[in-house]
């Protein structure tokens, strides 16, 4: 398929992006474009203008301090996957990035694009929620738990642009993904993050959007061990059934992946 006619304009600054988005209500910011362009080619969306963020170097920085890893919105997945510094502080984040799509997609796709798109089967929302991140936009800061609203829906207002995502560095964390055999998106992805004081478990791929599993979080908060998850079942009532998996199987996979994620963090000799 070939996309509908569209205008392309490269933005020179974040302010310029805001200007263009304000002037063209049906404009879309274009980050890496790995989902947006693909969707436009299938004629699933038809913005009149694409505001290309590709030239905005100020959005490509990775900042790490004692508590946080902050990724500029235009940081590519490959950058995260290959970053020694990130691998040192949140290896799960680097490994999540390394599992997105394929090498070519990772060379183009961006954190900001993925988070703003909020594909229910995308990986990043799991990290954002489990790592209790803050999404910084051109106008405000949004807590992870408030950011993802529904399928492909976020708290972003028209004209608002993500500029960075600030992840909290956990004591330990792991992300495991059961790949859809065709698309390589997550059929189920489970991100477990242990902050010492609390544990966060975020699931993607299984329902209309990322969600947390409170019962698992409480159990792991009491004792961070795979056995703590014994008997905890995720209800399949709200989960997706589609060509690739029925809800019941997704629910089962969540339990299995969560256990394996925890186990990978508690097994002797394994890295934090």
């Amino acid at each position, binding site marked *: 398929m070939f996309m509908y*006619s569209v205008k392309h304009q490269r933005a020179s600054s974040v302010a310029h992006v805001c200007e263009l988005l304000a002037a063209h209500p049906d404009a879309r910011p274009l980050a890496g*474009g790995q989902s947006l*362009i693909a969707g436009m080619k299938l004629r699933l969306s038809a913005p009149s203008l694409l505001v*290309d963020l590709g030239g905005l170097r100020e959005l490509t920085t990775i900042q790490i301090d004692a508590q946080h890893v902050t990724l500029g919105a235009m940081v590519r997945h490959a950058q995260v996957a290959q970053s020694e510094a990130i691998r040192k502080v949140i290896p799960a984040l680097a490994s999540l990035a390394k599992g997105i799509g394929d*090498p*070519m997609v990772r*060379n*183009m796709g961006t954190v900001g694009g993925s988070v703003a798109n909020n594909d229910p089967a995308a990986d990043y929302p799991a990290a954002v929620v489990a790592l209790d991140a803050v999404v910084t936009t051109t106008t405000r800061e949004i807590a992870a738990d408030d950011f993802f609203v529904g399928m492909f829906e976020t708290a972003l207002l028209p004209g608002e642009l993500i500029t960075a995502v600030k992840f909290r560095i956990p004591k330990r964390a792991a992300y495991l993904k059961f790949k859809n055999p065709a698309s390589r998106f997550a059929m189920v992805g489970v991100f477990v993050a242990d902050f010492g004081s609390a544990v966060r478990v975020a699931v993607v791929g299984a329902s209309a959007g990322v969600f947390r599993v409170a019962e698992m979080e409480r159990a792991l908060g009491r004792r961070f061990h795979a056995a703590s998850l014994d008997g905890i079942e995720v209800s399949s009532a709200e989960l997706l059934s589609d060509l690739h998996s029925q809800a019941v199987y997704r629910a089962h996979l969540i339990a299995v992946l969560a256990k394996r994620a925890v186990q990978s963090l508690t097994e002797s000799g394994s890295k934090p």
Partner: protein
Amino acid sequence: MATISIRVNGTQVTREMEDRTLLVHFIREGAGLTGTHVGCDTAQCGACTVHLDGRAVKSCNQLAAQANGGEVRTIEGVANDDGSLHAIQVAFRQHHGLQCGYCTPGMVMSALDLLRLHPTPTEEEIAGHLDGNLCRCTGYYNIVKSIQTAARMMAGA
């Protein structure tokens, strides 16, 4: 319409094309280099893989305008300047790493990207890296072998 100018295999190519033109169509129709192929429309098959500013990308999944001012290397730019085959091309031939040849340019460009990052990959790393490249003919065995051999040849060069 937009004026798009991209350096393709060392030659500056400037064309007036619709904004919606994909990079792959700029390469195939604008630059006239048809070695880069289109095999799907959802960025799964990787037949369209080229290098943009040194990194492998799927040229069917971005606008030519996004690459404006950039530098693209395609399969036509892989062989040595004297016309002899690059080590990776020699290895693909040696190991029967191609059959119909349609996915091959994307495979080669993707493999070169891997060898840039990991000059001595294991079989498992190679197979993992080819996640974005579908081949329907070879069963991948000879492709993986080809890339391993190319790695050895390139290290020895």
